[in-house]
């Protein structure tokens, strides 16, 4: 199981994967927006998206878990 974490404070701009999707290593799961920059947060290894912990528009802090990939 891998926890997909926010690398910095910001808001969830777009969620680009659905629960149940199989994703590859490096595939974007969530796009954060911080300081006017869109920052893609990707899966570190291949797996299936098990849970999305945030919704578009949510504010997140650095280290918050965004999604779980099994």
């Amino acid at each position, binding site marked *: 199981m891998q926890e997909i974490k926010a*690398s*910095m*404070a*910001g*808001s969830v701009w777009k969620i680009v994967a659905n629960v149940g999707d199989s994703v590859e290593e490096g595939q974007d799961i969530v796009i954060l927006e*911080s*300081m*006017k*920059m*869109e*920052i893609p947060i990707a899966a570190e290894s291949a797996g299936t998206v098990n849970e999305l912990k945030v919704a578009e528009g949510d504010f997140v802090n650095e280290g918050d878990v965004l999604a779980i990939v099994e």
Partner: protein
Amino acid sequence: MISKVLIANRGEIAARIIRTCKKMGIATVAVYSEADQQADFVTMADESFLVGPPRVNESYLNIERILEVAMEASADAIHPGYGFLSENEQFAEKCAAKGIIFIGPNSNVIKQMGSKIAARNLMKQAGVPVVPGTDGVVSTAEDALETAKQIGYPIMLKASAGGGGIGMQVVQSDEALAKAFESNSKRALNFFGDGSMFMEKKIDNARHIEIQVLADEHGNSVHLFERECSIQRRNQKVIEEAPSIFISDETRKLMGEAALQAVKTLGYTNAGTIEFLVDEQENFYFLEMNTRIQVEHPVTEEITGVDIVEQQIIIASGNEMTVKQDDLQIDGHAIEVRIYAEDPVTFFPSPGYISHMELPEGEQVRNEIAVKEDYHVTPFYDPMIGKLIVKGKSRNEAINLLKQSLTTYKVEGIKTNLPMLLNIVDHPQFLNGNTTTAFIDKYYLTQRKN
């Protein structure tokens, strides 16, 4: 004459506009979001109004609320600064409808210059050189390949609705173009809801050099020479200087004339900047026009002695500007560096708490600053936390003062690009003035990777 200005902006530019208003005896009104309650510009203004939550759509881009405050405070003019509503033609129109002066050009010009394709076609009509490329959008990969035959490689593929470098790619061959077209168009559709693309010839070893202009309603217009802004990361400027040591006096004259020709053709008024790409042979090509004050305007102020914000207010009041072309001369050399709250290698933002801060001081050192010690830099706005501007009699003198000033500049608690700036100002290619738009990719990032 304008007697009360509302500043529809935040950070260093809000503070800078308030300073000039005070000098002119004009009352000031600040608007701020919940995230900016502790910011200095709020207390500097004569009056200040909370306009909404941190997110820009609910605060600094909230046109109705900002106009409501302007009416309530009886402001007779609004200065939009840069970014936010500064190039929003609807905002300019709505100000006019309420009888409030928008300190900038009319909404029609803002609209024309806001469309990359319309701007390009207007400049062609005005006789200003443009980069060889498409006059309209290219919708399919087949069209793109056909167009490539006329333009010739290398080609810069750009998203029509794009910004911040998204959907932009340089291609060298038909195969690369076909592939890049599909992926960038898809990306642009994802990001901007519009997948249309356009194509331009890629100018090799290009420099980004821009001309500052001022024009009033009485038919007077001047250019305030150039700014060299080639050193960029993520297609955003990092270091700007004036004058450019690359262009000859003859090119400077031609670029100034082209800029004034554009101003006349557009019927432009107030401050504006015409950005050009300049190739190795000093051919210059129109890139875009910014219909507002620029972040890097201080370097022009330092070498000409003109307060650009003051002239903006005089012009917006309907008066004749007090600057004449024949009186303008380049005095010395000025350099600005932008201090960004970001990782100096990955350029990822670094919001957070500033535990300690020290600024360089000196007669020829100017700080424009948005933050302070014991202050939270929030993730809601641009990462630029300040600008450091230095002036010298020569470029070398300015560089030495810049190095010295950067050494004493301290921001602790968050990551900043200060280490990168120190690295650049020591780089032999920067010292030689060999600065192209590829500078950071070519010298700084390559060096970091090794």
